[in-house]
């Protein structure tokens, strides 16, 4: 009854506000009614989708109910809720990297991994560091490893389980200065830290099974809270193939202790986490000839996070905390592969020093074993203090903090027998990781949250004031202990970041207009700073090698491909946003632009090298061009887009809330420096490989544009009395487009092995027997824009509580799909999609 009264009142108020805005005055009874209505709304506030954060930076907030309703297997499923994202079926047997604000058909090229590398994951205040991750099989000879390794790509989201998470905030916009080592955004994960009943969950879908159990207990009036949780996931790539699978065990013990020491309050929070991840992929001995082939990668990570927070019981204007986090990992990859040489003769490339050597020959077939031992250790320490104070009418909340981050890998590294290598054409050699120096990052930040009330006309409610909120922060970071040759040595990289929000009361709601700008910096990882030595093995072009010969003279040139000019990747981003809230309706519209011009890239460098080869006692000098990879800041990732979200209040009678979100995302991946290219340079003329003597230098646009526009409409029904929640998501993907950037195949210059110098490429060179091959011809058609038109899906999720203790849920992705045929280049494309479904049971005892 009261509610009905409230609605009538609201309608009346809305009418009055529209008809005569100045006459809006409420009496105390009306205010009380509104207040009770607000409480009624709050009671129903079950949100099963991602919410747009009301903080100054644009962020998505996913709470426990939403996660519960989503029924995720890993954190990777949560990012499907972000604006612009579409539901993807879990792919747990391959690495899952994050692509914030990148178009749905984002580039998976490692040259553009700076975006996922630069997305910070912060779990209970402790950043997850992947800078010392070197778990990969070098030489790129293992497809199994290529699909699973995350070196220089950031966090593998499938390793993070969601069951102990209370709330996730994904900052897409400009993060405040507290967050460092990022380019794209921050994923803030807060785990449950409160007494809870025993919670158990069992989930099964066609490809995986998940089991979780957790409990939170409290003593002494909640001055001691202990939470424990463990979960196990087993996933297969194909339900009928038990030989390719992924298993994960995550366990955590979290303790919070509060002491009163005289007039001070001391809080200590200590978390111990274990995460075990095992990937296996073997050949079936019954159907494969090469039964030896197997791959196993395991990662065991233990983290210990401690935070001590010190504050005054009554004088709450300051608060000091010290956080210390140690994260250690034991990771091993074991790969066994049967190798058959496809040609009879191949030297054993095992020369570790510069110079010539008579190399023995590989047997025509053998079993190769490759082991990678990584022992990354990361330490993070951060003292920080917050102050709350006023200057005149301005409210301040200032933070000052200092951080030290240490990353080191104590592993034995790449271990294999060089005479039986997995990749017998690799120019790499075994390498111990413990020889690589540690990274020491020192950073500091100062930021101030300022609230400026602007006018006090409104008498209705203290909340309803014009105000300007701003967060101004500055962050400096520097790598310590670098060799003097590094350009980064002694440099402090400054990140200024500003978030502004102007709040306007409108009726009983408010509107805000926000703008933000900031620079975000990500330092290179250990492997980017200290790459493996390259061993360029060379032989005489015309060397006579017979099958009976037991050795072959090989000259090895050792190259240290360190780029001393390497700089951090820096993303310059700004955004404007308009948002509002009125009577339970929320909306936000954001336009953003991010420009990272110095993302990390594997750039090819080129040099002319003369080497002596001794044959039959005669030494001859040969010269050839050698190309080798060098990590540079040569990638540009440009992102722009519009994100929107509207959320209605839960409409009574039909108990339904509507959420509409979506985005237009436009991502441009390209090079930001000219480059040598051997793309199409494989020709041999008159017995001479063109590539050995000539190399083109191209100032072209190499990359692509990816774009998509989508809208998701989510209707969720919450029937509290019967404990039923049903949500239907209509995913409308209006289009996905892709375009290769136009490449000009004519080089601006070329390097000649004769002098090792760059020469301008002239018109006459286009008819030279050799130089003509440097002028690449690309057909215009490959640069055309390819657009995939509309695709629509319906996803359904149902949750039902059986008793107070039990809850069952199921989900079906792509239950219904609408994929109209379309014509492309004279061909009709017929599309199809298969549903993906799963079920789960939850117990709360």
């Amino acid at each position, binding site marked *: 009854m009261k509610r009905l009264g409230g609605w009538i009142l609201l309608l009346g108020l809305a009418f009055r506000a529209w008809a005569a805005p100045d006459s809006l005055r409420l009496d105390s009874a009306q205010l009380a009614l509104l207040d009770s209505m607000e409480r009624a709304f709050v009671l129903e506030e079950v949100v099963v989708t991602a919410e747009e954060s009301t903080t100054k930076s644009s962020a998505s907030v996913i709470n426990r109910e939403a996660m519960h309703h989503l029924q995720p297997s890993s954190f990777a499923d949560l990012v499907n809720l972000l604006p612009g994202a579409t539901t993807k079926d879990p792919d747990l047997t391959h690495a899952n990297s994050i692509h914030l604000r990148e178009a749905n058909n984002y580039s998976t090229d490692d040259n553009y991994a700076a975006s996922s590398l630069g997305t910070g994951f912060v779990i209970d205040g402790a950043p997850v560091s992947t800078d010392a991750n070197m778990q990969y099989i070098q030489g790129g000879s293992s497809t199994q490893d290529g699909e699973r390794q995350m070196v220089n790509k950031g966090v593998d989201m499938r390793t993070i389980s969601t069951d102990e998470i209370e709330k996730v905030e994904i900052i897409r916009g400009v993060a405040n200065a507290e967050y460092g080592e990022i380019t794209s955004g921050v994923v803030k994960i807060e785990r449950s830290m409160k007494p809870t009943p025993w919670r158990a969950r069992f989930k099964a879908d066609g490809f995986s099974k998940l089991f979780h159990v957790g409990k939170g207990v409290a003593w002494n009036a909640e001055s001691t809270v202990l939470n424990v949780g463990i979960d196990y996931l087993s996933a297969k*790539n194909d339900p009928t193939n038990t030989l390719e699978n992924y298993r994960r065990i995550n366990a955590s013990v979290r303790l919070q202790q509060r002491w009163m020491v005289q007039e001070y309050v001391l809080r200590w929070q200590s978390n111990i986490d274990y995460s075990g991840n095992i990937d296996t992929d073997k050949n079936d001995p019954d159907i494969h*000839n*090469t039964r030896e082939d197997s791959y196993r990668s395991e990662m065991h990570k233990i983290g210990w996070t401690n935070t001590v927070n010190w504050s005054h019981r009554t004088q709450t204007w300051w608060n000091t905390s010290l956080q210390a986090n140690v994260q250690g990992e034991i990771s091993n990859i074991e790969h066994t592969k*049967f190798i*058959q*040489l*496809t*040609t*009879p*003769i*191949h*030297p054993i*490339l095992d020369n570790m020093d510069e110079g010539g050597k008579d*190399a023995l020959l590989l047997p*025509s*077939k053998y079993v190769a074993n490759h082991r990678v031992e990584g022992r990354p250790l990361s330490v993070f320490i951060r003292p920080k203090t917050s102050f709350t104070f006023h200057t005149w009418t301005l409210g301040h909340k200032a933070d000052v903090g200092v951080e030290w981050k240490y990353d080191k890998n104590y592993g034995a590294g790449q271990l294999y027998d060089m005479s039986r290598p997995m990749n*017998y*054409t690799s120019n790499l050699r075994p390498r111990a990781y413990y020889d690589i120096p540690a990274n020491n990052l020192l950073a500091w930040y100062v930021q101030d949250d300022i609230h400026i009330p602007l006018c006090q006309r409104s008498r209705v409610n203290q909340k309803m004031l014009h105000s300007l909120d701003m967060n101004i922060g500055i962050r400096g970071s520097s790598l310590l202990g670098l060799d003097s040759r590094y350009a980064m040595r002694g440099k402090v990289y400054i990140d200024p970041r500003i978030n502004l929000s102007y709040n306007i009361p409108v009726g009983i709601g408010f509107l805000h207009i926000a703008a933000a700008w900031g620079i975000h910096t990500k330092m290179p990882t250990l492997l980017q700073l200290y790459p493996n030595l390259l061993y360029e*093995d*060379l*032989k*005489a*072009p*015309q*060397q*006579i*090698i*017979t*099958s009976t010969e037991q050795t*072959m003279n*090989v000259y090895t040139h050792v190259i240290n491909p360190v780029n001393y000019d390497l700089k951090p990747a820096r993303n310059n981003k700004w955004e404007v946003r308009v948002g509002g809230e009125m009577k339970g309706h929320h909306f936000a519209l954001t336009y953003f632009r991010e420009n990272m011009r110095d993302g990390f890239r594997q750039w090819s460098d080129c040099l002319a090298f003369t080497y002596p080869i001794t044959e039959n006692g005669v030494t001859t000098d*040969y010269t*050839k061009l050698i190309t080798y990879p060098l990590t540079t800041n040569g990638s540009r990732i440009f992102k722009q887009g519009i994100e929107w979200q509207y959320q209605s209040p839960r409409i009574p009678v039909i108990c339904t809330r509507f959420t509409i979100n979506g985005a237009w995302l436009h991502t441009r991946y390209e090079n930001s420096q000219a480059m040598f290219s051997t793309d*199409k340079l*494989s*020709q*041999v*003329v*008159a*017995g*001479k*490989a*063109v590539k*050995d003597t000539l190399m083109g230098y191209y100032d072209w646009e190499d990359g692509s544009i990816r774009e998509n526009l989508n809208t998701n409409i989510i209707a969720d029904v919450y029937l509290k009395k019967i404990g039923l929640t049903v949500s239907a998501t209509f995913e409308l993907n209006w289009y996905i487009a892709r375009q290769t950037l136009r490449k000009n195949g004519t080089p601006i210059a070329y390097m000649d092995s004769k002098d090792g110098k760059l020469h301008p490429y002239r018109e006459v060179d286009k*008819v*030279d*027997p050799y130089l*003509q*091959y440097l002028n690449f*011809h*690309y*057909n*215009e*058609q*490959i640069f055309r824009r390819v657009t995939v038109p509309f695709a629509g899906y319906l996803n359904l999720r149902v949750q039902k509580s059986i008793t107070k203790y039990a809850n069952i849920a199921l989900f079906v992705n792509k239950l219904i799909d609408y994929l109209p045929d379309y014509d*492309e*280049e*004279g*061909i009709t*494309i017929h599309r199809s999609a298969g549903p993906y479904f799963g079920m789960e049971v939850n117990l709360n005892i």
Partner: protein
Amino acid sequence: MRKRIGWIALMFTALWMNGCREKLQPSGDKTDTDVTIVCHLPDGMSLSDEYTLTIEATDLNMARHYHWELTGVLDGDSVLVHTVTIPTGYYDWSSSGVFGTAGRLQRIRGYAKGQSTVGTGNVDIRTYLTSNNTDLIIAEVFFAGTLTPEGKQYTGDKYVVLYNNTEDTLFADGIVLVESKMKNTTQITLKPVDFRNEYFAADALYRIPGTGKEHPVAPGGTILLVDNGIDHRSYNPNSFDLSHADFEWYDVSTNPNYTDVNNPDVEDLEKIYCYTLTIWAPNNQGNTSLALCRLPDSISAEDYVARYKFTYDYIIVTKAGTFDMSATACKLMNNWVVDAVNLCPSTTYQWLVVDDSLDGGYTYVATAGNDKSRYGKCVRRRTMTTHPSGRRILQDTNNSTEDFFPTQEADPTYFMR
């Protein structure tokens, strides 16, 4: 996932090919049509020669064959015209004939492939003299490689056997072994003009060295060209001994990862041009065409590449749509070619990358490109008859469908016996 993509690709291909089949069927009823066959004769046919001309038609949808035989005397016209009545349909036409009198016989042959009888009423067949080949011919090609006992691919034992099918001693000096750029499994539309009747797009050229009189081949004699002239049995028991080869194609490289075996006892071919800087071998599924040719006036490799490199545009229809593409290759004029063999798995044939006059058919070692039964199999030219002196006379009608036995057990010494 890769498997799934493979399946999808296969399904698309199946769908697409099915679509093609349907397109081949002209609309309308299966009624009879009058078709005028215009057979264009090659230049230089003598007046008042007697002739016997056979015209054949194969209905591509119904797999029915028709043939007509014409006899007469040439009256100086450059065409022979004949009208026939056949069911409406889509046909491959061919004509072959014998002209002249005994002792001075000339043979001609010509094709008109994939012609619809709807609307046209005319079929033009361009014919040409089938060589009484006066140069070396390709007798056997082994391009698939072998399998090791562990089931892994083994390459390096590929070979080509050249044969002297004439009555004179020939010299192999200057003969160039060529692989085509285009594939018989992928039909493309060449732009702006279809150059196949003028030249051949070559991607690998290896020349037999010599001054002209260094490498004689007696009638019935062979030349064995191999990848690696070694005894492969010590690496792979399923392979063979090629240490007695005449020449090997040796790929020079400064990279020890591409170490081609070079047997000093087996002379190397001169590498004129190759698209790859690793070790070259003919396509192991047999999708390309191989040819023998003689370049004019012992042109040097560098001069040849500088003068004959060309870029051509084409349109390709794939499962993903129709695309304009470009490619770079070396021009090989048709009149330099002395013999050509089109290779193509039997079920994936789409077109011929060389002109009909060089080879009007194709041969294969497997039904599908990735068919694993192809390993260890070769294509071998048919023996037409045996000369009183004991040497084989091989069939050479410039149609490898007829001239070759497909899917034969590879034996590099077959023609030496």
